[in-house]
């Protein structure tokens, strides 16, 4: 099968039941993609995808350092994520944890382990973000969080998970 790369679309695949893989090629060398990915002033410019205002963007880029992103949606809802850096290889690879802050009460927070890899070829950089969850339910919730009305779906699903765990 021929792989088709488009510079316009992110490719999302689900390599295993617990994973999400996001891939995109950029017309820039990897040290710049790495900067745009790790410097708060730059992350602020793209992470919300124009879906809200970035209220918080904290990055303490060292092993054991914390990060936190909070976006406020136009209807005033705050959506927050935070985590910790586990491995940092400048311009090459970042391994960090990610926790969604919107879990309903009584449901344990789950951290995914995200590995971002920067690969350069002919001045273009492929960014791969591999999201590793601890189980399929959390992975599925994560995928569904991208939906516009996904939060309610996610919460419904979460309830099912909580019930099944109980």
């Amino acid at each position, binding site marked *: 099968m021929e792989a088709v790369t488009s510079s316009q*679309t*992110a*490719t*999302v695949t689900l390599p295993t039941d617990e994973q999400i893989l996001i891939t*995109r090629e*950029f*017309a*820039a060398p990897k040290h*710049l993609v790495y900067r*745009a990915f790790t410097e708060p002033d730059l992350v602020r410019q793209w992470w919300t995808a124009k879906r809200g205002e970035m209220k918080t963007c904290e990055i303490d880029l060292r092993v054991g350092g914390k990060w936190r992103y909070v976006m406020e949606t136009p209807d005033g809802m705050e959506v927050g994520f935070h985590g910790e850096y586990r491995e940092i290889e400048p311009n090459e690879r970042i391994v960090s944890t990610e926790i969604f802050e919107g879990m309903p009460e009584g449901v344990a927070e789950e951290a995914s382990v995200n590995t971002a890899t920067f690969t350069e070829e002919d001045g273009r950089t492929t960014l791969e973000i591999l999201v590793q969850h601890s189980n399929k339910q959390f992975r599925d919730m994560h995928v569904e969080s991208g939906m516009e009305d996904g939060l309610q779906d996610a919460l419904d699903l979460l309830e099912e998970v909580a019930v099944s765990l109980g």
Partner: protein
Amino acid sequence: MNDLVSQLGLAQPQVSKHLRVLREVGAVVVREDGRRRLYRLNGPALKPIHDWVKNYEQLWSERFDELDVVLEGLKQKEQGDGSSDE
């Protein structure tokens, strides 16, 4: 089949097993061509999975479109720095 074996780096029995499962759920369609078996993806059967992931993919596509703009700015700045009086 041989193409898949070489591309995936899996042994033929494993590939056969995966293909059998994919055939059973209708994700691939098989056609006999002499001694060869040709497999093709069955698009409509895969559509529900695609639809499910589509919205999440859209979020990242939009993020990365913005990231393109950031990178364009960084590239121009870097080129500008190269010719500056540092």
